[in-house]
Structures are given as structure tokens and as C-alpha cells.
């Protein structure tokens, strides 16, 4: 992966505050790398607040996160660690066990964790930057790249690599653009039908495949590896739907909700971030 540290984008206001939001759960082993990456950011650290939201860990993630917060607090504007309500495990009625598959439950828990963290941590910050705790790489100028688009919602590529192969592949299957085929397919679907990507062939175009339209491209769905959202839009009510919203939940649901709120979504197909391979 080639990356030049001198390739800094211009026209980005360096006086806007950023709130980095990260849900964590059994993430003890990722926190060192997580903070090392945050330290690598070139965006002024006195404008960066970090908020971690922990729930239902069994490996002492919360205590360790508190220690890390203490260690790194002098190097950022503020670091908060929030304890979130553990997910309410809803019993699945026998008759609907095929419709409510595990993806919907998992991602609705994820959405509720994100929403709780957002509501507890966000004050008057200009931008919310959602970063997964298990990222292994993003460019030091990540924030500048994302902000340079001046869009209310921005995502970069999120790739991953197999440990034995040196080839990168698309990790984030939630960042896509609708096609005629996908729109047509969803037209006939019942209202509570949940469309998930990454399970078989897709009707959508993923961000990494849209490389013929320039550096910034419009999108219809976003993932949560790295996701920049304008703070005021969150405060207006843009959240991660924990229910099926327009056939999607969580981050993709947020993108659908943003579309309803007349907000544009920008993707950066040439800015690469790397997620831990699963």
C-alpha cells in the first residue's frame, strides 16, 4: 500500500473539533494499535476528543480502556470511556426465526451501542468520526481527506488482507451505490425485508469498484470502519436505526435515513484504510 505523508489535501479548515467515537466489546487486544493509529493522525490533536463505549466485555476491556484513556489523555483534547447498557437479548418467536436472522440481531445491537455512545458523548463537536477499534491502518491525513469533501457524510475504502496472501480485498460490504437492479429488487420486497450484503453475489457497486468517476463519488450505503458524519446532522436526529429502516439497519440504515433527510453521502475510492481480517 503506497502512501505519501506529504500528499496533504488543501482547503480543509483545521479549526473544527472532531469527536472520535468507537464502540468496544472484548477489544482489549486491539486498544494498543487503536491508540497508536490515533496518535499518527496529523490533524491537530487539541481538536480531537475520543469517546469509547464499552458493553458486555468479559476480558476487562473497560478497565484497560480506562488505563489507556488516562495514559493518552494529555495528548488529545479529551478521552472519555462510557459504560453502555448491555444489549437486551430478545427471545425470537419460533414462527419468525427465519426472518429475524442473526445479522439483524447482531447489527441492531451494534446500532443501539452506537446510538448510546453518540448520545452520551456528543456535545457541540463539529464532526463525529466513527472508527472501528480493530482497524490496522489508515493514512495519517485521514481526517483531512474526509473533510476535504465538504460532504455531511463521508467514507473511505475499507479493505482487508488474508494473513497468508498479500492481496487486499474489499472488507466493508456496506459501502455501496444502488443500481437499477438493486432498486428494482427492493421495490417488490416486503417492508420488513432486511437486505444484507456480503452473502453471495451483489446487485450493488461497492466503493472500491467505482474508480472511474474521480476522487469523490456519491454513495447510497455506508459501513462503519471509518465514517465521518457532520455533528449537527447527528444532533438533528440522524442515528443508526436498530430496526429495519428502508430494508437496512445500522450504518446502512443511517445512510438511508440521511437520504430521507436530504443529505449527500460521499465516498473516497482512492483513500484506503485496512481492517483486521476476520
Amino acid at each position: 500500500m503506497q502512501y505519501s505523508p506529504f500528499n496533504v489535501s488543501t482547503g480543509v479548515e483545521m479549526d473544527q473539533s472532531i469527536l472520535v467515537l468507537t464502540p468496544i466489546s472484548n477489544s482489549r487486544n486491539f486498544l494498543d494499535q487503536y491508540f497508536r493509529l490515533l496518535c499518527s493522525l496529523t490533524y491537530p490533536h487539541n481538536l480531537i476528543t475520543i469517546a469509547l463505549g464499552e458493553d458486555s466485555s468479559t476480558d476487562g476491556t473497560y478497565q484497560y480502556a480506562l488505563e489507556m484513556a488516562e495514559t493518552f489523555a494529555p495528548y488529545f483534547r479529551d478521552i472519555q470511556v462510557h459504560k453502555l447498557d448491555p444489549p437486551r437479548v430478545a427471545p425470537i418467536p419460533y414462527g419468525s426465526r427465519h426472518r429475524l436472522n442473526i445479522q439483524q440481531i447482531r447489527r441492531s445491537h451494534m446500532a443501539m451501542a452506537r446510538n448510546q455512545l453518540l448520545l452520551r458523548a456528543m456535545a457541540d463537536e463539529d464532526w463525529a468520526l466513527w472508527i472501528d477499534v480493530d482497524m490496522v491502518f489508515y493514512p495519517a491525513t485521514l481526517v483531512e481527506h474526509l473533510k476535504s469533501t465538504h460532504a455531511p457524510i463521508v467514507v473511505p475504502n475499507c479493505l482487508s488482507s488474508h494473513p497468508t496472501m498479500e492481496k487486499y480485498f474489499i472488507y466493508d460490504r456496506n459501502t455501496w451505490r444502488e443500481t437499477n437492479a438493486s432498486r428494482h429488487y427492493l421495490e417488490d420486497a416486503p417492508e420488513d425485508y432486511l437486505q444484507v450484503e456480503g452473502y453471495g453475489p451483489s446487485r450493488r457497486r461497492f466503493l472500491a469498484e467505482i474508480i472511474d468517476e474521480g476522487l469523490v463519488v456519491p454513495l447510497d450505503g455506508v459501513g462503519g470502519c471509518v465514517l465521518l458524519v457532520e455533528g449537527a446532522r447527528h444532533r438533528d436526529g440522524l442515528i443508526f436505526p436498530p430496526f429495519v429502516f428502508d430494508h437496512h439497519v445500522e450504518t446502512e440504515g443511517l445512510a438511508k435515513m440521511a437520504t430521507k433527510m436530504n443529505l449527500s453521502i460521499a465516498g473516497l475510492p482512492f483513500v484506503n484504510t485496512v481492517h483486521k481480517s476476520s
Partner: protein
Amino acid sequence: MSSLMAFKCRRSHVSGVSVITIITAALIFLNHVQMSVHTSSLASHTTRQATPATVASDVPLRCPDDMTLNVSQYSDVQHQSDYVIGSGKYTDQILILTPISNSVDRLANYFKLLCSLNYPHHLISVALGEDTSTDKTYEIASSVAKRMSPYFREIQVFHFDEQMKHVPVYSRHDPNFQLERRTHLAHARNQLLMRGLRDEDWVLWVDSDVAYVPPDLIQHLLSAKGDVVVPSCMYKNEFGASMVYDKNTWRETSESIAYLKDQPPTYLMLEGYGPTKRQYLPSLAHEGTVVDIDGVGGCTLLVRANCHRKGLNFPAFVFDNHIETEGLAKMASRMKFSVKGLPLVNVFHA
């Protein structure tokens, strides 16, 4: 630039640094009375958003005498209870949220209304969110809040910059204004929610122009044990009769469900403009004190704080053919939260 350098991280591997957790104790002097402070829970480790201390209930907080609400107009309304403030084993923290805009004339009555509540005031915090006022609403709200803050757990006042133009009061019920007006209201409520909510257990939305509520309103609402709970919101007409004010609190009927089935997703269903297909809350009184409903209004609206935290908010767009408070009720049912109405508890809008 030197300040930027100071924020540079140490270039070293992170070692397991043992940290001694320092618990700082704080003493709060309220009304010149020293009160003991509960240790705040370790739920959130934050320096910026310190939560207000909870004070012990052995010395009840009482508003000054000049803040007594004039209830003569509502003397026919049954007063269920008149307990002394602070009695009862109450522990739930309540956050009262109120969006205000050009509300200078209503603020005094609004705080008298809060003072009339006999739920323990040390468990009640208040947050006002002001936007697009053309008068001195923010300044006056801040000064009234400062005066009244010793009598509650905490009072905060926020100012929000909203781009939307202000809809004049006289035309606010014009149907053509509704999408814009209620989108704006949803924005205002969501912003206030995000800034105001801290560690409270319940959020009570109260309109700034509510004229009368029963003193035990909060106890009534809590007793429903729902996730979203509303009382009947009425008004007194010129002959002193109680009329339904809040037409957003209703239950769907087979007729309304059938009607909505044929509408496009962008269709905004409004109530209060011509005959309704729904049943309004007061008409459900025969079913008991707590009834299930499908739409809620914002006169006085109790929401479990954890439901808000999990994402329940006021849709600022057409959601399930509804918006704002009615949209919240629709969102609540999607999230499998219960929506309850109290047809026999009446609050009065001005």
C-alpha cells in the same frame, strides 16, 4: 504552534501503566444547606460532562411562594393527591426537556408549572433549548433558570442555531406549514435531547405553553410502566369546557390502517384537519387507566431515557407516514417499545 506540539503523542510502545483511580468528592452547597452527595457511578469516565450531584432528600426543595401556579381556571379538575414534596420512596431521576422559541411571555408560567409538581425536586433536572427567537427568550430564560436552579437538581439553557425560518404562531396550524414546522420541531427536540440528557432515568417532554398539569403528573406517568407514556392533553374553550387539544395522541383503527396502506411512503398523514379515522386518547377512557396507543403528541410526553439512548428520537422526515412526535411513536413500535396513554389524567394546553 507550540500548543500543537504539546499534543503530540509519546513515540513509544504502550506499556501497561498501572493507574490509581482517583475519586474526587464534591460538596454542593444548595440554598446554603450542606447536603451529602451520592458517589456518582463509574458509568462514565468523563471530565467535560460531569453529571450534577444527587442530593439527599431529607431537606425537600421548595420553590418560593411567588412561584405558585394559579389553578383557579382548573378548579374543576380533580386533584388526586396533595402530598408533601419529598415524601415517598422515589429514586428515578427525571429530565424535563422543553424547546422554546419566542417564549418570553410564557416562561414565568412554565416555571410555576414545574414548581407545582410534587415529585421530589432534587430528582428533577430541566433543560431548555432555544432557537430562532426574535425576542430575548434566551437571555430571559437564562436569568429565570439561574433564579430557579436552587429549587431543582439542575437547570440548563441551550441556544441552537437553526436555519429554518420561524413559523408565526398564528399560522402554525396551517396544514401547508406542517411538514416544515414539524421538521423544524423535530430538529429542535433532537438537538435538545443530545445536549440535555445525561444520567437521568426518564425524559419528560413538556411544551412551554402547557397551562396546567396535575401536581402528581410524573407519578401518574411513571405508574404506567411504559416506555413512552402520555396523558390526555386538553384545553379550556371560551365556555370553560374541556376539549381535546392534542390530536397527535391516537390509536389506529382498521379504517386508518387500510387508508395508509394505499398511500405512498412520502405521504404525510396529519390529524386535526377535518374528520379523523383514528381514536383520540380521551375516547379510550372506558378501557381503563392505561391504554395502548399508536401516536403521541408532545404536550407532556414521558420517554424512558434508555429508549432515547438506543436511538429512539423524533424523525425529522416522513417516517411511516408520520413525523416528529407521531413519528417517534411509530419508531417506538418498530423498536418494540411500548406506547401507553393515560386517558383519565388530563393536562391543559394554553
